[in-house]
């Protein structure tokens, strides 16, 4: 039936309001001068607050909560020599409930950030909380899926909330499926 795909997403729709955060996820690296410089480089962003004073741009918070692709003792991430193979475990960065039907792709659609405290050199950020606050089913040009909206926060090594986030991801199955 043409509408079966929406039924497959119903468990996710029913899960709206739930927190799927689990344990806080620590970013791959502390905020250091080289990471800041690399972040600013493709933006050609020469603000001395970031280059000289060591204050992280707000747009970099999402980077500093990103977990590593591989970590010592964590098993192999690069297990395939297929040209476009994706590393195992990279989905850690993706926000999912575990209830989603099989899907082939995802992309970010919407983003909101409320910075509360500065992030500076030496800080180590973690992503905490992951509340599903919306799930809108939709068929788009790239496929059928759900716009899933999440709320979460970033904390520093002192467990202070440095920013609150709200982001929407479109998780979908391509048209060939």
């Amino acid at each position, binding site marked *: 039936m043409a509408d079966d795909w929406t039924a497959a997403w119903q468990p996710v729709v029913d899960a709206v309001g739930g927190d799927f955060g689990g344990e806080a996820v620590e970013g*791959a690296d502390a905020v250091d001068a080289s990471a800041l410089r*690399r*972040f600013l*480089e*493709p*933006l*050609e*962003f*020469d*603000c*001395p*607050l970031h280059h000289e004073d060591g204050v992280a*741009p*707000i*747009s*970099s918070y*999402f*980077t500093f909560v*990103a977990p590593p*692709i591989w970590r010592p003792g964590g098993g192999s991430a690069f297990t395939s020599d297929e*040209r*476009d193979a*994706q590393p195992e475990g*990279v989905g850690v*960065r993706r926000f999912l409930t575990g209830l989603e039907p099989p899907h*082939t*792709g*995802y*992309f*970010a*659609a*919407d*983003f*909101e*950030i*409320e*910075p509360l405290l500065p992030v500076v050199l030496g800080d180590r950020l973690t992503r905490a909380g992951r509340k599903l606050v919306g799930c809108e089913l939709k068929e788009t*040009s*790239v*496929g059928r899926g759900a716009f899933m909206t999440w709320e979460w926060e970033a904390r520093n090594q002192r467990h202070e909330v440095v920013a609150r986030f709200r*982001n929407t991801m479109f998780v979908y199955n*391509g*048209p060939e499926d």
Partner: protein
Amino acid sequence: MDWSEQRYWDDVEEGADVPAVAFPLSVYRLVVEAGANRDFNSIHHNSEYARASGAPEMYANTGFLLGMWERMVREFIGLGGGIRRIAGFRMRRFNTVGGTVVVRGRVKSKRREAGEALVELEVWSELAGETTVGPGIVTVALPVRS
């Protein structure tokens, strides 16, 4: 950019334009960006993978696009300004390689609130004359002259 100059809340006029900033998108730049902001989703640096996902080409990632907004806003508010909130950052179209993203803005309103002098900037990104991100609202605080 002369960072010694500071814009003050008193001098900001509603309806005024925020100076635009252009970001040409080459494969080279997208690859540097992926390494810099650790968004290695292949849709952002692999044309074949991006096309297989339904996109027309590889395209700029969220962190890059958000950074573009932050750079334009920071250049407008100067070192003494602060960013209080970014909302409405809706990615409507793919910002694909081979084009130039232009970030534009306009002063939407200004107000005093909780001891701060705030300005709401309407911000959006364009590619080939079409709005690709936003328009959203970036709320900033500025110093006051008096």
